[in-house]
């Protein structure tokens, strides 16, 4: 299977031993987009949530404190950079590391919020992310055991064996859990109720972009 058939024409490669970094239209599109969003997060201020209070004419305003703002902005930028790395890496092991880092940072972004429902949700997501670390790394290990390499460039040239397919499917479970997408998103949705729009955006953005990239990786392996 040609690697160009998935994400467009190959624009260049950087061989680092057996790991070959490669760029195509899809990677550049995802990489540039995530960097634009990360730059916007770095310069954005947060919104103030305003709700009418029941039984009176007052308003309830919820905003992000300065110390919390700085902590969450730092973690959001780290999450953006980790996602950008996952978009251009040519190595399956690096991808799993970036994925694990994104999962940890996602929990960190909401753990500073003093809101019981949000913290409960982050705790549940954390448990799922932790459990899914095993299939994530285990799947990559199975592929390594079956092929002797984790370079995507090399994997594209190797015909899929049953163990490679099984490893890829196990990895899919790991990615779904770590990124908190369906059917695991129920544990994550409450996290988005917290104020701090730019920071919670990166949680959702990183999950969706990781899935787009993993679809490409999955099809390379299959």
């Amino acid at each position, binding site marked *: *299977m040609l690697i160009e*058939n*998935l*994400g*467009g024409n190959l624009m260049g490669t950087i061989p680092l031993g057996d790991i070959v970094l490669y760029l195509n*239209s*899809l990677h550049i*599109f*995802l990489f540039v*987009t995530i960097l*634009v*969003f990360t730059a*916007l*997060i770095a*310069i*954005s*201020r*947060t*919104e*103030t*949530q*305003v*709700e009418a209070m029941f039984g009176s004419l007052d308003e309830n*305003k919820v905003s992000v404190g300065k110390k919390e703002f700085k902590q969450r902005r730092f973690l959001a930028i780290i999450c953006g950079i980790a996602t950008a790395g996952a978009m251009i890496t040519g190595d399956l092991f690096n991808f799993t590391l970036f994925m694990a880092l994104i999962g940890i940072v996602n929990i960190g972004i909401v753990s500073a919020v003093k809101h019981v429902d949000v913290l409960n949700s982050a705790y549940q997501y954390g448990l799922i992310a932790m459990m899914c670390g095993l299939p994530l790394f285990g799947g990559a290990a199975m592929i390594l055991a079956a092929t002797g390499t984790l370079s995507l460039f090399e994997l594209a040239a190797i015909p899929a064996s049953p163990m490679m397919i099984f490893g890829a499917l196990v990895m899919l479970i790991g990615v779904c859990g770590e990124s908190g*997408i*369906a*059917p695991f*998103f129920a544990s*994550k*949705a409450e996290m*988005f*109720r917290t*104020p701090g*729009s*730019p920071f*919670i*955006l990166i949680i*959702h*953005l990183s*999950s*969706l*972009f990781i*899935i*787009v990239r993993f*679809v*490409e990786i*999955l*099809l390379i392996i*299959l």
Partner: protein
Amino acid sequence: MNLMAQILINVIIAFLAGSLLLGFHRKVMARVQLRPGPPIIQYLLHSLKFFFKETTFPKTASIPFYIGITVILAIIWVTGVIVGPVTKGSLMILFGIYAIHKIVEHNAGSSSGSPYGKLSCVRAVFSAAGELPLFAVIAVIFLLTGTMDISGIIAYQSIHGPLFFQLPLAVLMFFTLIVTKSPYSPFAITKGKEIISGFETEHFGMLRGYIMFSESIAWYILLWIFLTIFFGPISVVGYLIGMIVICIITGFINATTPMLNPNHSVMTQISIAVICTVGSIIMIII
């Protein structure tokens, strides 16, 4: 023709055709509900009108995201035109564009500070499951044709015949996605009327203009992709007839179906995606 000229012409076509198709879609819905409905050109006039109205910014908004997100939406859909009708590039990039569209729904809703936008933002996270049928469709098409390039898929169909007849379950999945993205859809939980206009509620003036401009292009591109990847090389008249027929069908569905609650909406889409993906793979193997 010069590439820049091609891009410009295709963006204008996508905007005009998309706006008129959305207006037509609304007309069909109105006639099904025994109402006269607005003129077909109404959506286009609304879109243009917003570019000349005063733009205001809520004091509570997260600036510059509140502004930037609408510009990002317009840019990604112009990119969609370039990757789709202009260069016939990779379906994976279009998949990425739909992912960013979901992010725009999410951030446009949360960045204003409005509770309606916030609810829409949380629902956007749930409704990300709506992208599953798209992922499943492109994966199934790749397994059959061996390429993600739209030009490659067209070439495959010119030899083997339309994919419409070879992958009927993938067609059903993609059609579910079209219904999901159509206005007043039973799956359109991010724009439910109980949350006013959802994530668009607090965007006024030029910012709303950008959103409506992008929605027109998004609708056109969605129909264009469906017709291209399932019917292969077809003429301009073929595209026109196909798009009108899809608007009539989705108009009937949306006019007669109430909006589902978020859980039912998500589970319906996931169920359709799983059943049709497994069915399509079995059909390819057989």
